[in-house]
């Protein structure tokens, strides 16, 4: 199978990016090293190619009604704002987690995980309750970059016609970026830092990468690969679909109750989730700090020698210098301070449940 390339592929090659097959896309896992790139984003600013993410539009007079029926959050935001949400099936399992961008009363953009693009589009189309709403998979028409870190605003501000100081967290604006018209800029991200995600019409996108690198030079901007993207998101306890959440987990179990709004009109999964809430959750996704060794996805979690759950993500945190992990445990073991053990390739390591997240930005 031929790997797909984003409009920025040549820039990754020129920068010496280590290219891998990431769900069918040829993308850089790192350029200089995951640790250095991770710290670069925490301490200054970095540029990510996230063009593999999918873009689905809901267009039509009832677009808001439709999206409110399809996702767990209430999309109770003005035009020009975005909201993080889960999208569930009828059993309350998570089809995907995504960001909904309310562009207008009759236009909503849904940014979906690359690995779920086809599934999500089919789900949104087949479950769209409103005949006057079109669901359009525009993923091939859009490239996407993320500028993440404390200098992101200053850098993008220099090459756009929009006053980004007026764009609040989760705000969305249309604008010209590096001469490319029709871009969508959102103050969102997947790193735990302040920053922007910029949707760029794919055909003109290539030149935007070097323009951001040039504008970022005074701030020492560097390109960042997928490796650091994963460690950054894990420190901030942002979900990775397929690891931490999937169709067998519910948003309530995953700690996404804050994006699950029962006080809105019916939505897909509502009755199953309400039943789960009333019956009491059997398990919860918790933050873990592991002694000495690094737990990885699928390592069993034990209490008194008995397997009670499983790790879903784990790494050594470059920022807090601890071995961090996420995993599901029965609710009675989910309280911060609880000690448990993790079977790391046949040997037990001690671990402790800690309060989420592992990292919170200091500004």
């Amino acid at each position, binding site marked *: 199978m031929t790997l797909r390339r984003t409009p920025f592929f040549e820039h990754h090659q020129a920068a010496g990016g280590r290219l891998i097959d990431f769900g069918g896309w040829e993308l850089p896992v790192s350029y200089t090293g995951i640790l250095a790139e991770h710290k670069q984003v925490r301490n200054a600013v970095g540029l990510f190619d996230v063009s593999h993410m999918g873009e689905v539009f809901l267009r039509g007079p009832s677009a808001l009604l439709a999206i409110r029926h399809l996702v767990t959050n209430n999309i109770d935001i003005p035009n020009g704002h975005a909201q993080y949400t889960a999208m569930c099936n009828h059993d309350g399992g998570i089809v995907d987690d995504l960001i909904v961008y309310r562009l207008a009363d009759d236009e909503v953009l849904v940014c979906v995980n690359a690995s779920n693009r086809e599934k999500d589009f089919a789900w949104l189309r087949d479950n769209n309750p409103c005949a006057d709403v079109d669901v359009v998979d525009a993923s091939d028409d859009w490239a996407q970059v993320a500028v993440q870190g404390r200098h992101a605003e200053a850098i993008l501000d220099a090459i756009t016609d929009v006053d980004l100081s007026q764009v609040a967290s989760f705000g969305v604006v249309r604008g010209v970026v590096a001469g490319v018209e029709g871009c969508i800029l959102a103050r969102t991200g997947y790193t735990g830092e302040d920053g922007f995600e910029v949707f760029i019409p794919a055909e003109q996108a290539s030149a935007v990468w070097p323009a951001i690198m040039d504008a970022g030079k005074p701030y020492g901007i560097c390109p960042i690969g997928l490796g650091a993207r994963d460690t950054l998101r894990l420190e901030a306890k942002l979900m990775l679909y397929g690891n931490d959440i999937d169709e067998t987990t519910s948003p309530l179990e995953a700690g996404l109750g804050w994006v699950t709004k029962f006080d809105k009109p019916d939505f897909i999964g509502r009755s199953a989730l309400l039943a789960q809430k009333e019956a009491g959750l059997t398990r919860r996704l918790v933050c873990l700090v592991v002694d000495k060794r690094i737990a990885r996805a699928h390592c069993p979690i034990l209490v008194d020698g008995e397997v009670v759950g499983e790790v879903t993500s784990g790494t*050594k945190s470059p920022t807090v210098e601890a071995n961090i992990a996420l995993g599901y445990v029965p609710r009675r073991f989910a309280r911060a301070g609880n000690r448990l053990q993790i079977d790391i390739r046949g040997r037990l390591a001690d671990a402790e449940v800690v309060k989420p997240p592992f990292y919170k930005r200091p500004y």
Partner: protein
Amino acid sequence: MSTPQDLKYTRSHEWIRIESDTVLVGVSWFAQDAMGDVVHVELPEVGDVLKAGTPACEIESVKAVSDVYSPVSGEVVEINESLEDTPENVNASPYGNGWLFRVKIGATLDLGDTMGADEYKAHCG
């Protein structure tokens, strides 16, 4: 890529340096480059008896964990304890400060499937 001529290499990217009756073991430049930033090394213990071709220790990079296979059979007589605090030496100096452990070999040393530097370079492509 660096591949010192005085070492022997395995297909699984370990190197050995023969020093009288002991053998020093590490991983190659190619291996550390493929693993990326090393953040933890789980060394064998002194006294462990290793069998050639079986897992002897683990190297954790940010991305993943990799097994290191002992290139030779014998008893572990020394481990590189400095890697506990500076695992990044495996990246910075794979043939120097990043060595892993030392094995005492018996009367005869079976070099098994190890190869010289030129053959190893060809193996790495």
